[in-house]
């Protein structure tokens, strides 16, 4: 088990290396030049001199490979992700402030998704082809079809039209005022979680149906167990194994959704940071955020692989 974990962690190194390379290069291929933007904003006459000075000051005059090694070296040696080109704040500070917010949103959304998906998926399976099953299946198709940005927008717009409700403008961190923070986060989490729940619900239903047909479920009935025991003790565990995989695969979707939802609800998380940085071509922020997101996704997938062992006794980590 420990050897397995060590090997898996080692394998992260090349993956992260390639991720960093790709992120670094792609960002610089995005059309639009930060220098032009800065010059335009500062209304400086774009004469040759000030332009070169700016490029030099930002370190963008060196060849790309030098820039890359400077950047990655900083991260590896000092945990230094560079500084924002616009605000000159260290990217690490920005990450430190924003990461927990996105993490909280993602975690809450995941909980919401599981609370919706698992019980409804089970219900839908054990009451296959009843009205309730059809209703939940239609709901999940609807959720799959409706993008979360649209839902988010509707949730923002209609309550404000009907009741004059408006979202909190100032964000309160969990550490400052947990209750107030949860109040702010619950709606975005529910929207993100609901969107996420659709596929999980469908898979839970499919897997439950599959498992309920197995011989060992017939054995469980033949032992005189109640439906609750048959479903919860004998079927659910076996059905959840692929569901856990799916949750791992959904991690990037979850993060992608968080970016959008943060934008709609103006939640200062990684998503908002990333979007702002992209529109300003603030390279160090973009690369830093992307790298951290990639790292998180890899860790989530590792956690998923490890959790198989809890569900499936046949799994041995070698």
């Amino acid at each position, binding site marked *: 088990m420990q050897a397995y974990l060590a090997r898996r962690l080692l394998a992260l190194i090349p993956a992260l290396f390639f991720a960093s390379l790709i992120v670094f290069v792609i960002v610089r291929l995005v059309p639009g030049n930060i220098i032009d933007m800065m010059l335009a904003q500062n209304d400086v006459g774009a004469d040759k001199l000030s332009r070169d000075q700016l490029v030099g000051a930002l370190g963008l005059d060196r060849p790309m490979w030098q820039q890359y090694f400077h950047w990655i070296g900083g991260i590896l040696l000092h945990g230094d992700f560079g500084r924002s080109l616009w605000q000159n704040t260290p990217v690490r500070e920005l990450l430190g402030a924003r990461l927990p917010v996105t993490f909280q949103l993602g975690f809450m959304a995941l909980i919401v998704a599981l609370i919706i998906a698992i019980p409804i998926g089970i219900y839908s399976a054990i009451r296959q082809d009843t009205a309730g099953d059809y209703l939940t299946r239609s709901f999940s198709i609807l959720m799959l079809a409706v993008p979360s940005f649209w839902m988010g927008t509707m949730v923002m717009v209609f309550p404000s039209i009907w009741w004059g409700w408006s979202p909190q403008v100032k964000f309160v961190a969990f550490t400052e005022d947990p209750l107030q923070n949860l109040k702010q986060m619950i709606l975005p989490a529910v929207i993100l979680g609901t969107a996420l729940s659709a596929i999980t619900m469908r898979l839970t239903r499919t897997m439950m149906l599959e498992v309920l047909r*197995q*011989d*060992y479920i*017939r*054995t*469980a*009935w*033949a*032992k*005189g*167990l*109640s439906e609750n*025991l048959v479903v919860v*003790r*004998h079927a659910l*565990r*076996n059905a959840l194994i692929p569901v856990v995989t799916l949750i791992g695969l959904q991690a990037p979707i979850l993060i992608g959704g968080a970016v959008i939802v943060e934008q709609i609800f103006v939640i200062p998380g990684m998503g908002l940071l990333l979007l702002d940085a992209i529109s300003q071509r603030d390279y160090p922020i973009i690369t830093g955020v992307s790298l951290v997101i990639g790292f998180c996704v890899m860790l989530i997938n590792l956690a998923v692989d490890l959790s198989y062992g809890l*569900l*499936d*006794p*046949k799994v041995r980590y070698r």
Partner: protein
Amino acid sequence: MTRPLLEVNNLTTRFRTERGTVAAVDGVSFQVAPGETLAIVGESGSGKSVTALSVLRLIPNPPGRIESGEILFDGVNLVKLDDPGIRAVRGNKIAMIFQEPMSSLNPALTVGLQVAEPINVHRGTPWAKAYEAATELIGRVRIADAASRLNSYPHQYSGGMRQRVMIAMALACAPRLIIADEPTTALDVTVQAQILDLLKEVTRETGSSLILITHDLGVVARYADRVAVMYGGRIVEVAPARDLYARPQHPYTLGLMASVPRLDGGGGRRLMPIEGQPPDLASLPPGCSFGPRCRSIIPQCRTERPELIQVADRHAKACFANV
């Protein structure tokens, strides 16, 4: 004769299929006395498993349904019991052992839990105590090192060992009837006899009755007191095992006997197919369903359906001809 422990009267179980509803079990009646071993034999698809599952009301619905008949267990009609009522019988008074030991145990739960579970559920015994009882049961089915086996999982066991676990599980609440549906068909020949001997031994010890479903006439001769022969969802002949071997009276039974070398010898011989196809339940011929394959067929067989009638002491058959 003492009052039967199980008395099945006119049981009919139908399945809805794409080709219309079929009666997988069609007006079946039989009895099992306390302590008796009744074998049910017949070709594949003759309705043996459906009969067994019907007794515990385990027919998947849809597509199946017990349509009529009564199943009297200890005088109580199981067909009429409500949900908690039938649950209190399953695994408690009547236990079942299935054909596929590889897939009939839950892969995600320990063997100990699975054996202890019926005791916990039916008697309300706390888990710690139930596990103690499970250790004892696992020892009784001769799995070595029972205590340390409790925490192992089914995938660590061979097929024969798993079937022993199934037997331990069936014995958990000291049932009065055990239904074993082809318990050894999936096992190696050498293991088959061990498992059947074990079953015979534990039922003798506890005085419980046994319904033994099998393909294997060798098994019948060795382990059963009485035999019911099924064909196309009906019982066509029923008799004490000796009588059936000495004087088979139904053409189908005769065919089965002819296709198997004479009894006594060890198990392992399966029924050889008799000439012709097993009946298609969705389009049975009018009259006797064995007609198309029968050598003794007479005109009456084509129009009338033979009922099961007494032909000798404790010996009944469903056939018009004298063979």
